[in-house]
């Protein structure tokens, strides 16, 4: 095995060691599953409850992805509006900040009163994913090289030409950076809102499964749902990182998009 391969295996190794210790501890102390289930039992539960867990995971993932997509489009549209009109930016930016600093867990119960469960969860996920994307878009659209801006002016470029050929390409790395952060946040937002929904007996996502399994003292299933949530978070991060690398493959920044 080469050194670099061994180096790349290190994170996986640490996880395996942790799981082995966990398994050993549960077996050595003969812990009951409702105190701490062994990794082997969690795996069994994952396989046994796969229909239920899979359906719930699909609901959560769809919500997170929908929220991410709406946040990306919305943030870009609003950022373009901000750039075109400083007045609108001044009027609306504080609202965006207020939404950002108010914890979504505090807003979720209210959303659940006014909206259907799905709409409330979607909106909560959107709210947390939106702000980092908006900030990234605004910064990226403003990060234009002044020399290039002069060159566009000298060539008599229209506003649309400047946007299409200068501002949007300048913004792309910023946008993708925001997108990577927002991907994880959308998942967190969806889970938080689902927890609030699950507490009132509604909802069908993974967090709802966690709440319901808690009521039933089905601790292994709670862990199984948790494993899936982690995997989805890792998957989202890997997917957005891969997207950033691919879109920036011709730029020096492209190779700096690290996986860790």
């Amino acid at each position, binding site marked *: 095995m080469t050194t670099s391969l061994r180096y790349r295996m290190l994170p996986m190794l640490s996880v395996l060691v942790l799981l082995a210790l966990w398994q050993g501890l549960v077996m050595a102390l003969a812990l009951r599953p409702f105190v701490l289930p062994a990794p082997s039992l969690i795996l069994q539960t994952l396989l046994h409850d796969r229909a239920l867990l899979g359906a719930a995971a699909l609901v959560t993932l769809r919500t997170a992805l929908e929220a991410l997509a709406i946040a990306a489009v919305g943030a870009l549209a609003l950022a373009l509006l901000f750039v075109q009109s400083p007045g609108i930016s001044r009027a609306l930016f504080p609202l965006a900040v207020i939404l950002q600093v108010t914890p979504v867990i505090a807003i979720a119960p209210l959303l659940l009163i006014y909206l259907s469960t799905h709409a409330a969860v979607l909106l909560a996920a959107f709210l947390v994913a939106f702000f980092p994307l908006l900030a990234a878009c605004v910064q990226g659209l403003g990060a234009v090289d002044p*020399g*290039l801006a*002069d*060159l566009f002016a*000298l*060539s*008599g470029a229209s506003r649309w030409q400047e946007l299409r*050929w*200068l501002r949007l390409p300048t913004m792309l790395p910023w946008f993708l950076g925001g997108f990577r952060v927002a991907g994880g946040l959308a998942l967190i937002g969806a889970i938080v809102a689902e927890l609030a929904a699950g507490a009132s007996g509604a909802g069908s996502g993974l967090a709802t499964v966690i709440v319901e399994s808690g009521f039933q003292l089905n601790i292994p299933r709670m862990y199984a749902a948790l494993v899936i949530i982690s995997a989805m978070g890792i998957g989202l991060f890997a997917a957005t990182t891969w997207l950033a690398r691919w879109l920036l493959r011709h730029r020096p920044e492209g190779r700096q998009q690290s996986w860790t």
Partner: protein
Amino acid sequence: MSTRTPLIALERVGLGFGDRAPVLQDVSLRVASGEFLALIGASGCGKSTLLRVLAGLQPPSAGKIARLQPESRIGIVFQDATLMPWASAFDNVALPLRLHRLPRAARHERVMAALAQVGLGDRAAARPHELSGGMKMRVALARALVVEPALLLLDEPFAALDEITRLRLSDDLSALQARLGMAVVFVTHAVSESVALADRVLVMARAPGRIMAQFSIDAPHPRHHEFRQSSAYLGKVEEVSAALRQTLQAGDDL
């Protein structure tokens, strides 16, 4: 030089911001077609600003600018290459043509010709980060040349390059100008460079930025290595340096 037609004329141009000393004061200047003009001065003397005024990027607060051939085009090269990092050398050079909405087929030929002029015909597909500093400046130069400018404005284009690259690029610039015949206004802080390249050297002083002295360099273009060793060249370098020193003494302490 009486056969040369005037391209652009500044008359008593001034530029000021608020209470501070004007950036430019009473600058009168004529650029004729085909002439090579160097603007030299200490940092902050307004020479780059004057170039922006000439380009029409900075409206003056006093005086008049007359574009005597309004149809003529202007090309500009900045101190940094200011290339779009996401675009190939080809697409960077094609940018002004694309902004002028030239059809793709017509663009291709002119872009390749411009890249060939600066010796980068084989690097059209390279991205800026794959090119050396000198090559990036060549791409920027090709981007300025692709519009077939009557006036080429250069703002210390070689300042960030090493000595050998500088010399090669200034030789190439001299040859290009002799061949294509456009007027050039070249901002620099290097006396040797200004004398080696220009027909006319304008020495600027700062606070307020103004033209203090003017020198004619009568030597044919393109100028080769031998010119840099002639006594005429060395004499002019001495004269321009003396004038430059005077502007430093006249101005506030640096």
